[in-house]
């Protein structure tokens, strides 16, 4: 967007966006669209490029010009440029992407009318320009060739293609008598419009039920129990000095995870006076656990006991006074003191929290029962953290039934017509409620969904759901801000939104999404009735446009929230079940980082994105710890039968260091045999074990070997590592990923240099090039990076990085230009973990350049190691000689099988690489050149910050900084000078331009230091740099 806006007008002149409905609705245009765009795109002979541009220009003209009345003109060839549109210049539009209760404010980049990239909205506080991997990958779903293209009517075993009008006529006839007997099953949404429509439907007699496989119900209930009313906890992690995370994964599985990552990193600056400290109790390693100074692996069901034990330690051990209405029985606390789940260091944690009252923060995860949440709130209140590190935004939870009530209604015969507003419940429903049989009892079943999935096949009517980039709508962010959802493209396949379908049910004259969102916006501003017609109320129009421009309504959220007072009733202590053992394992159901609850199963970017900890792509697995695996006598890749209360499913085993003993993590959303081509064969279906009574964890899981194995595709540790290799890794990693404790750092700021290899002075074989102009470089701060994968997808989206599929990943042929190296160190049961993003480091003395026989990889004057794709013959010698192994080879034509629709997502600024060609990170050279052009147009030099590579742009923790090393004022130069900076493999004298900042841990001195390898490496006091020859540091 930024590039586009430079030419479009004022500094913040993002283009407004709205639908010129009267134009779009014209019969001819529809005809064009149907014939030319949705149908034609997949037929290679159907459309020439020129024709495509014509059509696209028409849709731009119709959708991007605010206030500009465009006459009845259908086709606008670019020979006659539409006003305000520069062909080939990308434009950005703010919109909102919603995943259940999580709301992402994003900016979608549109290139000649097609959205190609999603970034965080820089103006929105909770995204700050960063977007998660999921949000960035959502653009790919728009072009999914397996999306439903037609409204389907299934009757008596036959499937007929029909259209919206026919369906609407049928439905209106059907409900003419009212909504009695109609049940609506909706996934979680934050949309005020949908909430309003659902409330109206309930009033009109329909039964409203919600089913979200991974929801935050218990979290809200916990707030209700503690404070007497539902509220959304607002986190202010930058103010917290001591953080305790009970299975909450605050940096990832939270609606404000992006914001949390940023604020957490901000509080972790080792050069500031204070550096925060994080304690984590969790069963499976999460990115939050990876950032922890102290992590305690504990089964998910025992996390509650750990909270109680901590409470006991605080109250009974440290004398923390319990506030009024705490609901906690002191006597009961005594029972929990010293409970095994808390571990031996609870006293130290309690003292740390006591010493930082008002600056501490405790959080429980959504899998924990409401009582645990309530106790956490009590402790936060008692410690004075409420109002400081956590505040609350009161919310009104809609009064809706749950899925059990829905099934009950069907079983009773109360519901005859069922409207399912997405979510594919036939796959995701709890296994114990007889959902499918109940659904079959409904006379009429209507399903709004993006794919012709299992639920669509179980319903009579399947209405294609519009992608959010095709939709008008709204949403509410975690802090209550009113968010805009606006389309960048006409629905490719005539999709509808949930609000539009509800409007068909409720409104005499069904409204379109634009009207619904406008009416809600009007009502939210206190207006009565429908929103004023366009152009009639300039005041309204102005706010509306500002709303669309920004993507949110400024000031509508609660930035600080309020502090609530405790009104808790008695908080029940967790029940202690039978002890876990190899025959009584815990099944812990978790949302998946890639497919979430299964909804992104057809997203190839996300499927191929390696899990940040397991590095698994294209699959889920039964994750067990090394000791448990030993007791069960299972190995990595063994196919086992999981049996939970008589329900069985086969799954491969993944042995993950740091997994709590006897806890088996099962990620949801795989095994989607009803998915499209991408997701169909990926993983196993953990929903089949998940019951309504035990949605989060369940005891009694048993594992039986089948004797078969299953190939798991990982991007690291492609094969089991032998003893010699494992020992070498433990020996080598401290040199590669350097880290130390805050104590080391403060006493010996240069300790990082001593972690490297000692070697004789480095001399070059050649006369080294002088860099007099710009000298691009990149700093990656390992202290901030938590390994969230956002940069991977950002890079993939920006640079047209191909997806190669599971078999190729298993071979070691993944194409990702940027990878996250994950290293475990120490005891496999309680290891520490560090992430290291590695892309091409643009060596000044690049080994790849010397060996290429055809000079296809060469150096630029600014020090980029440039890859000349059309000169490359593909000897792969460069890749062999690359010590970082960051070069990627196109073993096949990776774009061969892409349909014309799928190609629409490609970034036209970046070459699509041919078969047989090597490729790698370019530092986003296309962005460098754009900035250069922009600077030349303005007759100035490129300024620091003009250029942001895609990875740096989307990094929530701002761990990646790019800039000119020749500019002493640039941020990257400043970081280069810091003592924490080091070169990866610098002793090879290749002079990498990307350098790393060492990770600093802040262990509690009372507890044994976590990172012993961060000590001085046995070189005395670390001051005598000169005596050790040259240390591994080539200061650029």
């Amino acid at each position, binding site marked *: 967007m930024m590039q586009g806006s430079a030419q479009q007008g004022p500094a913040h002149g993002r283009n407004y966006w709205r639908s010129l409905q009267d134009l779009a609705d014209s019969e001819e245009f529809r005809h064009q669209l149907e014939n030319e765009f949705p149908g034609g795109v997949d037929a290679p002979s159907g459309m020439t490029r020129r024709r495509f541009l014509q059509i696209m220009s028409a849709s731009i003209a119709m959708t991007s010009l605010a206030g500009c009345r465009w006459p009845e003109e259908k086709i606008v060839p670019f020979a006659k440029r539409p006003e305000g549109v520069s062909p080939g210049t990308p434009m950005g539009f703010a919109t909102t992407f919603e995943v259940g209760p999580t709301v992402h404010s994003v900016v979608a980049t549109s290139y000649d009318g097609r959205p190609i990239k999603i970034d965080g909205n820089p103006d929105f506080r909770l995204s700050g320009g960063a977007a998660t991997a999921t949000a960035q990958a959502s653009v790919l779903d728009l072009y999914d060739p397996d999306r439903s293209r037609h409204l389907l009517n299934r009757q008596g075993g036959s499937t007929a293609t029909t259209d919206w009008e026919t369906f609407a006529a049928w439905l209106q006839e059907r409900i003419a008598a009212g909504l009695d007997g109609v049940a609506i099953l909706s996934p979680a949404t934050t949309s005020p419009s949908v909430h309003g429509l659902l409330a109206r439907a309930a009033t009109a007699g329909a039964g409203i039920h919600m089913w979200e496989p991974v929801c935050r119900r218990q979290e809200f209930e916990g707030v209700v129990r503690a404070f007497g009313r539902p509220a959304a906890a607002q986190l202010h992690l930058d103010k917290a000095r001591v953080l305790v995370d009970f299975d909450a994964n605050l940096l990832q599985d939270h609606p404000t995870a992006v914001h949390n990552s940023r604020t957490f990193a901000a509080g972790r600056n080792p050069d500031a006076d204070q550096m925060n400290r994080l304690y984590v109790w969790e069963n499976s390693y999460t990115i939050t656990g990876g950032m922890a100074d102290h992590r305690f692996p504990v089964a998910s069901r025992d996390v509650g006991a750990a909270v109680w034990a901590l409470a006991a330690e605080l109250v009974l051990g440290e004398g923390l006074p319990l506030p009024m209405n705490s609901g906690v029985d002191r006597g009961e606390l005594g029972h929990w003191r010293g409970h095994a789940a808390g571990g031996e260091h609870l006293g130290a944690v309690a003292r740390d929290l006591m010493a930082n009252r008002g600056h501490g923060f405790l959080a429980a995860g959504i899998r924990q029962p409401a009582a645990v949440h309530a106790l956490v709130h009590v402790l936060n209140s008692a410690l004075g953290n409420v109002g400081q590190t956590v505040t609350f935004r009161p919310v009104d939870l809609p009064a809706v039934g749950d899925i059990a009530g829905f099934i009950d209604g069907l079983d009773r015969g109360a519901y005859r017509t069922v409207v399912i507003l997405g979510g594919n419940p036939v796959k995701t429903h709890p296994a114990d409620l007889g959902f499918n049989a109940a659904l079959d009892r409904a006379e009429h079943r209507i399903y709004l969904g993006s794919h012709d999935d299992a639920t669509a096949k179980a319903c009579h009517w399947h209405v294609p759901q519009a992608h959010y980039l095709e939709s008008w709508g709204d949403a509410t962010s975690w802090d209550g801000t009113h968010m805009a959802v606006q389309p960048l493209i006409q629905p490719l396949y005539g999709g509808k939104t949930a609000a539009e379908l509800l409007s068909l049910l409720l409104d005499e004259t069904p409204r379109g999404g634009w009207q619904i969102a406008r009416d809600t916006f009007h009502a939210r501003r206190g207006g009565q009735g429908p929103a004023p017609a366009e152009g009639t109320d300039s005041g309204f129009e102005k706010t509306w446009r500002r709303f669309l421009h920004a993507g949110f309504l400024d000031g509508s959220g609660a930035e600080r929230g309020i502090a609530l007072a405790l009104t808790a009733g008695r908080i029940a202590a967790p029940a202690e079940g039978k002890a876990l053992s190899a025959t009584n394992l815990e099944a812990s159901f978790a949302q998946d980082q890639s497919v979430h609850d299964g909804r992104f199963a057809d997203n190839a970017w996300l499927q191929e994105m390696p899990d940040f900890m397991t590095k698994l792509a294209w699959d889920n697995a039964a994750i067990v710890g090394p000791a448990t695996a030993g007791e069960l006598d299972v190995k990595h890749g063994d196919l086992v039968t999981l049996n939970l209360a008589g329900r069985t499913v086969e799954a491969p085993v993944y042995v993950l260091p740091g997994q709590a003993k006897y806890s088996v993590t099962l990620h949801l959303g795989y095994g989607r045999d009803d998915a499209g081509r991408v997701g169909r064969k990926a993983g196993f279906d953990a929903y089949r074990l998940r019951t309504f009574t035990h949605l989060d964890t369940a005891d009694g899981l048993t594992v039986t070997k089948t004797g078969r194995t299953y190939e798991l595709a990982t991007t*690291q*540790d*492609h*094969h089991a*590592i*032998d003893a*010699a*290799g494992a020992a*070498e*890794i433990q*020996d*080598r*990693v401290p040199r*590669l990923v350097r880290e130390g404790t805050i104590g080391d750092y403060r006493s010996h700021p240069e300790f990082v240099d001593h972690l490297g*290899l000692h070697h004789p002075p480095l001399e070059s074989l050649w006369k080294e090039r002088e860099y007099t102009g710009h000298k691009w470089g990149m700093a990656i701060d390992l202290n901030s990076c938590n390994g969230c994968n956002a940069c991977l997808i950002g890079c993939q989206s920006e640079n047209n990085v191909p997806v190669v599929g599971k078999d*190729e990943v298993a*071979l*070691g*042929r*993944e194409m990702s230009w940027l990878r996250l*190296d*994950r*290293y475990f160190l120490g005891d496999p049961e309680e290891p520490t973990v560090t992430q*290291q993003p*590695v892309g091409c480091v643009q060596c000044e003395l690049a*080994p790849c*350049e*010397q*060996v*290429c*026989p*055809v*000079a296809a990889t060469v150096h630029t004057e600014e020090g980029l190691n440039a890859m000349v794709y059309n*000169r*490359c*013959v*593909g*000897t*792969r*010698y460069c*890749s*062999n*000689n690359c*010590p*970082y*192994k960051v*070069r*990627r*080879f*196109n*073993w*096949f*034509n990776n774009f061969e099988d892409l349909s014309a629709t799928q190609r629409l997502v490609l970034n036209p600024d970046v070459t699509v690489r*041919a*078969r*047989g*060609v090597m490729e790698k990170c370019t530092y986003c050279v296309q962005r460098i050149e754009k900035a250069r052009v922009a600077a030349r147009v303005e007759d100035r030099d490129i300024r620091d910050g003009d250029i942001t590579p895609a990875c740096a742009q989307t990094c929530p923790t701002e761990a990646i900084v790019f800039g000119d090393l020749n500019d002493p004022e640039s941020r990257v130069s400043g970081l280069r000078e810091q003592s924490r900076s080091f070169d*990866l*493999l610098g002793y*090879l004298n290749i002079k990498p331009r990307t350098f790393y900042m060492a990770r600093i841990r802040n262990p509690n001195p009372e507890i044994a230091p976590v990172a012993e390898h961060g000590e001085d490496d046995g070189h005395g006091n670390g001051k005598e740099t000169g005596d050790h020859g040259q240390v591994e540091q080539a200061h650029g």
Partner: protein
Amino acid sequence: MSPAAHDPLNNTVDDPTRPNALILGDNDFTSLTVKVSDIVLERKTPRAWYVAFTVTAGLTGVLFLMIGYLFIKGVGVWGLNNPVSWGWAIVNFVFWVGIGHAGTLISAILFLLRQKWRTSINRFAEAMTIFAVICAGIFPAIHVGRIWVVYWLFPLPNYQAMWPNFRSPLLWDVFAVGTYATVSLLFWYTGMVPDLATLRDRARGRMQQIIYGILAVGWRGSHRHWHRYEKAYLILAGLATPLVLSVHSVVSFDFATAQIPGWHTTIFPPYFVAGAVFSGFAMVGTLLIPARQWFGLKEFITLHHLENMNKIILATGSMVGFAYATEFFIAWYSGNPNESFAFVNRAFGPYSWAYWIMVSCNVITPQLFWIKKVRTTVPVMWAMYIFVNIGMWFERFVITVTSLHRDFLPSSWGYYDPTVVDILTFVGSFGLFFTLVLLFIRFLPMVAMAEVKTVMPIADAHSGERRAVGDYHGDIPAASPEGGGA
């Protein structure tokens, strides 16, 4: 007297009173000519030849099918991956180039060193060199990603003035192997001209006369011809001699100049050359033993020849073994942890099976040649040759793959398995090699008649006194004005 002395075909027993005969049996120039040229001209092609040819031609077909499939789909049909970007194709390339070394060594170096025993086997070895280089040349060409622009590796003038990168060892390879192939071919052909003329003169079919006539380029055996021939041969021998050392040195630069631990080693050039000679002689022996058996050439390719080859195998095999030991010593002595690990990983890592195959075949096997009985027993030595061939292929595999699969960053460690296409391409290259060998045996003189004649007792003016010590090429008896003297 040892029992071996009773065997008229065993000339490996030293009798200090007289030099060993290089050629056995009661042969004169004519019988030699008849025995060798009749294989080509007169004798009915054995049925076994047809059977063998059918098999090898079929395998050659497999080779070209695999190459076609590769060209259509891309290099991904092989098992290569990110850390291991070079696999069997490069292993096969180095393997075949190495085999090609025996020919030049025998032709050029032993010629300059006046090792007369070479005359019986040099034609065969040279032919094998050419065919091995042909097989070798296929692999670097087809292993590139974009085969349709592979000619960019050559310094062809173009309007963009875009030259190859002269710093790249792959480019040096192009020159080294190209030069080697050219010189070897010229050397082989030049040496064959007198024999081709013999075939021309003895041929009775019109086609044979025409074809051998063209190939003989007007050789009439005049003194002037002989004079120029001798000069040309000597010059080519002089040119080829440094190539024996240079080609495999340059091939080793592909690895030695790269910085991967296990590749970046200064020992590679001599180590590779020794290994090449080692493998080349093993391959010559592998082919020669059946050939002398089936075509009745035991009088010309005697046990003494084979024993001499075995001694060279013993010498070069020991050099190779020493190089392995040196690599380990330097890996430890250098104090470079990456280098040390590369070698620990070779011996004990996931590819240790390949390493121990290599060591068993290349270090242990040749040491058995210290025993004379082993050195002079044909079936045993043939089995040794097979071991050496296997071992030397694995040496290249170990160097190429085990170094790549675990380099600097443990995150990028991987494992490489060949695919069916990898395997069939390699098997197919043997098909091509043996097809060419069979064609050579069938259509060209496999023993250098003209040269062997010079070392026959009868060639010695003082025949009877100093048998078998005739001056090489220097004193051709004027028995006939044409041919090699038939």
